[in-house]
Each structure stands twice: as C-alpha cells, then as structure tokens.
C-alpha cells in the first residue's frame, strides 16, 4: 500500500533521512523502532506531506504522492497521529473530532462521531471539555480517534505511548491491536521497541538517517543484540 523509495529528507538544516527505502503491505502492521534522532518522525512527516523531501518518492497505492499537500493525502486515505499528539488544546474534545472529520460529508461525519463516542467512552464523557485539560492517556485516545475520523486506509502513528503510564500504554497497544485486527493498515513508530515489534507483521530498526535492520516483527523482537543495533553494532 505504501512504498517509500530512496527518500532523502531534511528537517531544518539537518539531513534526517538518507536514501531510505521501505514499504508497508495492505493490512499489515509495520513497526519502525530506533533511538530518537534516527529520523523516524521525519519519515512519517514526509510521508504525510508535512515535509517535502529533497530526493526520492512516496507512493500510496501506486500513486506518486511525493510532496503532496497533507490535506490531499488525508483525502487519499492517509492519516497521521503526530508525535506529541498535537491535539487542539483550546478546542473541546467534540470540536477536535469534528474538525478531523472535515473531509467527510455531514452525514458520514455524524456517523463517525457517534462511532467515536461508542468506541471511546472516555472521550464521550469529556465531550465538551477543552482538550487541553485531558490527561496524557485521554489525549492519546483523542489523537487516535481523530485520525480515524477520516476513515483512513493507512494510519501512521508517531510514538503514541510517549509519556504515558504503563496502564495507558497497555490501552494504546490494545487499540493498535484492534485496528490491526479490523484490517486497517498501520505504520507505527514506537519507543517500546520490543512490544511494537512483537505486535508487528514486519519491522524496521533505524539508526540516524538510515535503516539498520528489517524483517518479520517477531524475529526482530526476539533478537538479543537489538540494543547493540542502537549502539551501532548488529547486522541488518
């Protein structure tokens, strides 16, 4: 579904990705792990259209969407749950979800809002609260619920468990598992390397600017030298 070919991208003055290629097959959950600064966020941001790459291609279902406007990508079926969530703190929970449904027809939007209320009872109970008052876990649920409002084919998540308690981390991973089971394609960037790889069909381990290892998720999760890969050793 998603193909990234020889992507080179800058983040400010920094060349964060050098000639990176990877792909996500339909229905798969693919995990990308690695220390921060490896370029994982840059990868997702470039795919989602926030950054224009210096070189390389991004293909969604065969269509070249390199450097496309994020709004267009949403309409093409892609949704990003950004790092640090980036929920609209001054808007209520309901308003956050409404604006996330901007690409849908009014009828579809209503349906999806109802679905969100059902699937995320916590959000339902905080519907008119300003999003800035949500706890970390609630905010993460909101961020994921937002992404689902456009009924995307491909969901990108950037470090969804960042700053969350162990309990909320479990909740998030359960959510991801559910998305996966329901057939949505997921590209997940995660700090919790072991857990993410255990859940994933396939995984990539990144080091600054490049991919150090790739393979089936379970295999990578079982490796003893995973941390060594972070440190610069290990062979892809």
């Amino acid at each position, binding site marked *: 579904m998603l193909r990234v070919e020889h992507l080179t991208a800058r983040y400010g003055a920094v060349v964060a990705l050098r000639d990176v290629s990877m792909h996500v097959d339909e229905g798969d959950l693919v995990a990308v792990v690695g220390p921060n600064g490896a370029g994982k966020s840059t990868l997702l941001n470039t795919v*989602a*259209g*926030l950054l224009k790459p210096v070189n390389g291609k991004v293909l969604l279902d065969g269509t070249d969407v390199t450097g496309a*406007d*994020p*709004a267009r990508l*949403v*309409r093409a079926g892609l*949704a*990003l749950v*950004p790092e640090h969530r*980036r*929920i*609209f*703190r*001054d*808007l209520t929970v309901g*308003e*956050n979800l*409404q*604006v*996330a449904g*901007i*690409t849908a027809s009014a009828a579809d939007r209503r349906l999806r809002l109802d679905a969100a209320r059902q699937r995320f009872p916590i959000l339902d109970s905080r519907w008119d609260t300003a999003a800035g008052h949500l706890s970390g876990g609630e905010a993460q649920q909101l961020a994921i619920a*937002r992404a689902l*409002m*456009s009924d995307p084919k491909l969901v990108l998540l950037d470090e969804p468990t960042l700053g969350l308690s162990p309990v909320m981390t479990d909740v998030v991973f359960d959510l991801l598992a559910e998305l996966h089971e329901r057939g949505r394609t997921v590209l997940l960037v995660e700090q919790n390397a072991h857990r993410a790889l255990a859940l994933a069909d396939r995984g990539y381990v990144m080091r600054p600017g490049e991919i150090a290892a790739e393979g089936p998720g379970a295999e990578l999760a079982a490796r003893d030298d995973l941390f060594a890969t972070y440190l610069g050793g290990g062979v892809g």
Partner: protein
Amino acid sequence: MSTFVQTIVDGLGRGSTYALLALGISVIFGVMHLVNFAHAELITVGAYLAYFLSTRDINWWVLAPAIVVSAIVASVATERIAFRWVRGSSPFTMLLTSFALERLSHALWQVFVSPTKKSFAGPAWVFDTFEVGGIRFEWMDVATIAVTALVLALTAFVFRRTLFGIAVRAASEDFDAARLMGARANRVIAGAFAFAGFLAGVAAALILMRSPSAEPALGSDYLIKAVVAAIIGGLGSFTGAVAGGLALGLAEVMLRGYLPEGVWERLTDAFVFALIAALFIVRPQGLFTVRSAERV
C-alpha cells in the same frame, strides 16, 4: 449618575467599533501570524462605495449591506494579491507588506478619486435621542452597541458551531495539525480574511452612519486603535481582542471625562498612549496570554 451611565454608553459605543476591528485583526493574526496594518483600509473602501452609491440616491438599507460586502471582497482580495506571497516570511516582512498595502490604498484613492473629503448623507435618525429615567441616549450609540452585540454573538456561533469556524480556531492554534486533519490551507486563510472583512464591514457601516464621509486617510484614524486593542488583548485571542477594544473605548471616554480641566484634559489621548506603553512594559505578551514557546 446620569453622566456616568452616559459615559459608559459612549465608551461602549466607541469601544464596539474598536472591538470589531481588533477581532478581525486577531483572526488574521491567528492563521497567518501577520499583524495586518492594512485592515482598517477596508473602512475606506466601504466609505467610497457608500459615497458613490449615495450619489445615486440609494437607501441606507441597501448601503449598509453593500458596505459590508465590499469589505469582505476587498479583504479576500488583499490576501490573494499580496499576503499569499509572503506567507511564512518573517513577521517584519509581513508587517511591512501590510504597510505597503496601506500606503498603496491611500495613494490609489488620492490619485484615482480625490484627495479631498467627500461627504454624503447619513441615515436621518442617527442623531435622534431618547430619554430613559432622566438620562438622554443617542439612538446611534444604542444601535452600535446592539449591532455589535449581535455580530459578536454571530461570531461566537460561527466559531463554535460551524465547521468552518472550528477549523479556523484549529488552524490558529496549530496550522500544520489542522492540515493533517484535512483542512485546506488556502481555504482556511481566505475564509479567515473573509470573516475579518465582514467584521470590518460592520464596523465601517456603523462608523459611516455616524460620520458619512469618504477620504483617503479615513482608515488610518481607526487603524492604530484597532491594532493596539488587538495587541493589548493578546494577539490571537478573540476574547482578548474584544475586551481590548471595549477597554480602549471606555478608557478614552473616561479619561476625557475625569481628568481635571485644562491642559490635562487635552492630553487625554497622550495619556491613553502612555498607558498603553506602560502596559507593554509591564506585560509584553498582552492581557490575555497567548501561548508561544520556542523550541531550543
């Protein structure tokens, strides 16, 4: 007592126009980080349109909406023609661009119409007064406050209940995140300019009903007050802009009323500006805090 009430009403009347203009400036700042010094030129546009239409004996029931429409159109046009090209530039560049537009607007009116003031007729009832409980009120003041209250209620509705309004608020808080939701940048910004134009158009209609004349520098008189009001309230805060505008109007009128006679009374405006300077010294970010944390 009666003078006090009259002062308040007078101040709110004044402050209403400032509030409407300041709100427009805040809305534009929210989506573009641009302090639009050309915003008040929309008043001048409305004024000249009203002048032309009034020479054809057109009723104020038509004139007023026409003024509002002209302001909306002009506002969107400025975005298309000038501000779109400096999106993302430094605040300095954007500020100077808005200045350039303001200068250009002045010049165009002077060159293609006339540098002299053109007066026309306001609605007949403007200076009529009525009495309540021994206090005399001007219909115009009441109309101004009422219309402004209505427009502000409408604004609150638009920004809270319509998808467009919610999108503009979202974009003001985090423009890129709004794009990630699927909001189209050009549409949101054009919409913000259109809405700001609407607000300025209403302010213009209210102003022109009271003083029906068109001259090139008409906007400038209101510009500074509007910008200052928006900044006092904290740029990007809609509540702040309204509060700032009303406060400024009240301060103007009250200072004039309560300063001792003589030199001091004449220096009211000077005092207002000194107060403003003091405010920025003490609280540079304005009255209503606006978030901004620079990532190191």
